[in-house]
């Protein structure tokens, strides 16, 4: 449970900063820090067990049939990463409190940060690969929010989009890879997968799985050729860069490679793909970093380079390589986070991150200089700092590794990588802090308050301590982590500064001296770099994405371009073709069921239906007439339902018909009297053919079904309605009991639809359409007597009668035709009549209940009915019923389904009335006047004025 809580805490805590920001920025920072600290504390309670080499597990079944369970486990690797995420997270929270300016919405920032933190902790603690994938995608989404935090900056938005596109795409590939992996092993539990190295590597699907998973890991960890998104993500505020791009998100890919190291590594495929990619990334990143003038870009590419280094170490597939990788993950997190923070401090203080405009800050910002110096020297690999230790291990490994038969290839390239790395680290110190003081800083630089520098200072203390006493400070942690990565016995290694005179020492020496030399030659080299043409990643990416978007749009436009006729044609055509394909690929024999004799009444109805439909085709130009014809069709269909003994359907159909004709009539008012134009004749002919084929096809299908004997689920419903649900009305029992969950979903959809109508009119009124409405001229003069006495009086007379009918329909619904839906429509019609008779504003003033609230209450009621079933220990929305008797009445039935039905009733009334209200808002915008009297004829004599004229 505790592990799940660690992962859940940041998510739950993400609600707090937004609330606490009202208490000030400090309150928000404190509460965010408290959440992280609590999670870290919980993690630390497991430290003794982890250091004893135990694996802590938590298991909660979620969707066991899918193999998706909430299972977490904590071993050395998870512990290291969770510790880094939460620990550096705490420092970042502190740093961000002082970094962000007053105008930045800090509550939002901390909320995003905690979401991200939770997702990262989830990744490193997940035992289930599907759960891991969920968290993986969550990191992509939350990092999108963080990178794009400064929404007003186009770079921020573009960088966020690019990061999301690249890492999201990789995540999708990884889903496929993980599914294959789970399929090979037969379990989605990591602990099980990790036991099955032999099965996985023997499987023919090993290579595809490996490639897909590596695609996910490489995109996340910005490995070549996906490294381009990381520098663009630097548009984020510096705390985000320091957190995401030093310690956490980019390390997620490394984490995954380390996690799956026991089962995936050790094959030539793994070695050549991973180690080579890592090496290329290390070189490319380091080379670009050397020539970047933006401080954060320099650090971003240096991060790319170091991530490449770690990938390279993991790719070697040797146990000692894994140890070195783990050690460098830890070291890189400490010095890189500190470096990012110092870059942020310089930016904050000098108001520029451009190296060309900096220099000589040493004496102006002594504290920042000290921190940056130590961290950068560590990055360069200078003893006795921690960067030196892990870089030595890397060089030592490279010196002993043969690549494609060549013994010198890897050592040489690794040395060049280290050389560039030393060069850009020196440059960070020399070009920013050393040199003469300048007079043209955009803002006079000075050391910031302790709030900003204490976090990086803490990290540099770690840098020094780990460097000086590696075995003491980092030894146990590296040991348990490496043990978890390699999944077995540890190789023979010691963490110490002096290993004697080894090849690595010479390589290190070459790197440092060469780095210094490159720094000396930087000016001419940079000139050379600037004139060499090189691919611009962003332009390529934009072109690629733009092309894809255009292709997708072109394809989509062919299917539906917003014209309803196009959409219907595609839909009808595809369905008809599918039907024809099925028909011609199967066998067919005519149905043998005896048809009923044709009697005159249905024939008459059929003729009317046909006539109305055909007339609609002819007269659709005249919208009012078309609406009347639609009404005729609806009425005949209702009569058809009555004739076929389906009173429920008939009642529903007729009330829906009335409501929709009334609402459409109101909407029609705002449309032009005639349709704008016809399609060309050929297209109409084509549409005729499509529509005719679809209609005839559907007709034949129904005929084929009706001429055969078939059994449906209806038999079950008929048999079980009374004994199972206590209702005689099978239709209603289906709605509120057998398929209650469907109904529940449907009323939610209905409620959403009504709210969308409301929102659409709201948006419409605010836009150009609203202005057009305000200038709208009526086609005809406004009639006098808009609220005629006759209608008003009769409407009042009808209201109580109809309400009684509605209540009756509702109450009897379970046993006789009726139910919440029909009752809701009937009541809505009665109310509509009042609105029509006396005008909207007049009726509106007499309304007691808010329609939004009514919809919400209806859905809430239905939800509570469902939850009530849980209390009774049965599945959601299971209904129960009983028979009661209150003398002197007859025995009657009460069912919990009736409460659900009440929810349906309220939602229907609310939805219809909200639609009416939205339409009337349009009418109001056109300048329709408000009446204060219920009708235009005043029934009482007006009081004579005291001073008569």
């Amino acid at each position, binding site marked *: 449970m505790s592990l799940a809580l660690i992962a859940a805490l940041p998510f739950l805590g993400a609600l707090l900063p937004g609330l606490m920001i009202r208490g000030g920025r400090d309150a928000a920072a404190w509460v965010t820090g408290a959440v992280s600290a609590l999670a870290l504390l919980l993690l630390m309670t497991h430290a003794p067990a982890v250091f004893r080499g135990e694996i802590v597990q938590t298991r909660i079944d979620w969707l066991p049939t899918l193999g998706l369970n909430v299972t977490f486990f904590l071993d050395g690797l998870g512990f290291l990463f969770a510790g880094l995420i939460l620990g550096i997270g705490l420092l970042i929270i502190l740093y961000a409190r002082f970094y962000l300016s007053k105008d930045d919405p800090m509550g939002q920032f901390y909320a995003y940060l905690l979401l991200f933190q939770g997702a990262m902790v989830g990744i490193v603690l997940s035992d289930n690969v599907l759960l891991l994938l969920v968290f993986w995608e969550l990191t992509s989404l939350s990092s999108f929010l963080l990178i794009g935090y400064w929404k007003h900056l186009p770079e921020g938005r573009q960088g966020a989009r690019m990061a999301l596109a690249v890492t999201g795409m990789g995540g999708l590939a990884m889903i496929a890879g993980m599914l294959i992996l789970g399929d090979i092993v037969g379990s989605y539990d990591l602990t099980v997968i990790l036991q099955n190295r032999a099965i996985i590597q023997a499987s023919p699907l090993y290579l595809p799985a490996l490639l897909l998973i590596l695609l996910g890991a490489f995109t996340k960890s910005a490995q070549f050729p996906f490294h381009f998104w990381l520098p663009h993500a630097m548009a984020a505020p510096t705390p985000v860069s320091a957190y995401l791009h030093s310690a956490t998100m980019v390390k997620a890919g490394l984490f995954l490679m380390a996690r799956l190291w026991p089962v995936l590594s050790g094959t030539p495929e793994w070695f050549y793909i991973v180690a080579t990619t890592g090496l290329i990334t290390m070189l490319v990143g380091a080379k670009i970093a050397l020539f970047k003038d933006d401080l954060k870009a320099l650090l971003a590419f240096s991060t790319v380079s170091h991530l490449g280094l770690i990938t390279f170490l993991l790719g070697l597939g040797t146990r000692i390589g894994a140890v070195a990788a783990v050690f460098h993950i830890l070291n890189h997190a400490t010095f890189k986070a500190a470096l990012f923070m110092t870059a942020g401090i310089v930016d904050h203080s000098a108001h520029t991150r451009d190296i060309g405009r900096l220099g000589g800050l040493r004496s102006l910002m002594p504290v920042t200089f000290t921190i940056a110096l130590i961290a950068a020297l560590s990055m360069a690999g200078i003893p006795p700092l921690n960067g030196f230790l892990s870089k030595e291990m890397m060089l030592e490994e490279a010196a002993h590794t043969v690549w494609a038969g060549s013994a010198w290839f890897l050592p040489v390239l690794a040395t060049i990588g280290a050389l560039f790395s030393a060069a850009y680290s020196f440059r960070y110190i020399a070009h920013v802090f050393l040199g003469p003081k300048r007079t043209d800083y955009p803002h006079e630089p000075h050391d910031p308050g302790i709030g900003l520098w204490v976090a990086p200072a803490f990290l540099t203390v770690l840098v020094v301590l780990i460097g000086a006493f590696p075995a003491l400070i980092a030894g146990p942690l590296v040991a348990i982590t490496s043990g978890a990565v390699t999944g077995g016995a540890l190789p023979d290694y010691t963490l110490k500064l002096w290993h004697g005179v080894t090849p690595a020492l010479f390589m290190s020496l070459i790197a440092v001296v060469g780095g210094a030399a490159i720094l000396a030659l930087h000016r001419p080299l940079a000139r050379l770099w600037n004139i060499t043409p090189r691919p611009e990643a962003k332009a390529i990416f934009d072109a690629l994405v733009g092309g894809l978007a255009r292709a997708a749009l072109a394809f989509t436009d062919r299917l539906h371009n917003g014209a309803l006729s196009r959409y219907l044609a595609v839909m009808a055509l595809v369905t008809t073709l599918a039907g024809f394909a099925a028909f011609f690929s199967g066998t067919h024999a005519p149905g043998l069921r005896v048809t009923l004799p044709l009697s005159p009444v249905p024939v008459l109805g059929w003729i009317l239906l046909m006539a109305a439909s055909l007339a609609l085709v002819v007269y659709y130009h005249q919208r009012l007439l078309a609406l009347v014809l639609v009404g005729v069709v609806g009425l005949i269909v209702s009569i058809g339902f009555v004739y076929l003994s389906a009173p429920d359907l008939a009642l529903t159909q007729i009330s829906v018909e009335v409501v929709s004709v009334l609402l459409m009539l109101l909407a029609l008012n705002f449309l032009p009297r005639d349709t704008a134009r016809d399609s060309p004749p050929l297209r109409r002919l084509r549409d005729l053919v499509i529509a005719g084929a679809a209609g005839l096809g559907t007709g034949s299908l129904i005929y084929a079904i009706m001429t055969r004997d078939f059994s449906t689920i209806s038999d079950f419903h008929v048999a079980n309605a009374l004994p199972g649900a206590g209702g005689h009305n099978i239709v209603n029992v289906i709605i509120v009991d057998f398929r209650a969950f469907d109904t529940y979903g449907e009323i939610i959809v209905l409620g959403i639809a009504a709210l969308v109508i409301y929102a659409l009119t709201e948006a419409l009124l605010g836009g150009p359409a609203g202005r057009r409405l305000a200038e709208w001229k009526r086609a005809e003069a406004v*009639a006098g007597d808009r609220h005629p006495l006759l209608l008003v009086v009769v409407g009042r007379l009808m209201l109580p009668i109809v309400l009684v009918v509605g209540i009756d329909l509702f109450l009897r619904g379970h046993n006789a035709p009726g139910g919440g839906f029909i009752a809701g429509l009937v009541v809505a019609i009665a109310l509509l009549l009042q609105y029509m008779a006396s005008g909207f504003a007049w009726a509106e003033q007499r309304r007691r209940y808010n329609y939004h609230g009514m919809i919400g209450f209806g859905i809430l009621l239905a939800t509570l009915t469902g939850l009530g079933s849980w209390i009774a220990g049965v599945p959601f929305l299971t209904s129960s019923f009983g028979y009661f008797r209150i003398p002197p009445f007859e025995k009657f039935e009460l069912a919990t389904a009736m409460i659900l039905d009440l929810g349906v009733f309220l939602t229907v009334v609310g939805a219809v009335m909200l639609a009416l209200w939205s339409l009337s808002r349009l009418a109001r915008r056109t300048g329709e006047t408000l009446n204060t009297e219920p009708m235009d*004829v005043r029934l009482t004599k007006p009081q004579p004025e005291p001073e008569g004229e």
Partner: protein
Amino acid sequence: MTLVSEIAISVLLVIGGVFGLVGSYGLLKLPDTMSRLHAPTKASTLGIGGVLLASILHFALIEQKYTVEEILVTIFLFITAPISTHFLAKAWLHRNARPEDLPETGTDCGWIGYDLAEPKEAEGTESD
């Protein structure tokens, strides 16, 4: 008894049918909207009224059941038919007739669809 009942019911059905037919014929034949309004009102009141009476008699005399549904139907019909006719007439007046073509109302207020956009001095004297 049964014979008498059946004759009575049949007569009512025939009367209802005849009025329905006359109403429909009038709808086709009468020259203008205002005259045509008269035809369906006959069909809906007398025509359907006859059928409803026949139904009441049928249930009461032949099946020995007393029903009130027909009476409710009658009431609703008698309430709603005038309203729809009223609206048809109003719509026609609004679209076709000019105020000056209309005859005097004989009171100090004018015709309802023209004069009463705002009820300024409406006396509310109802003529019906």
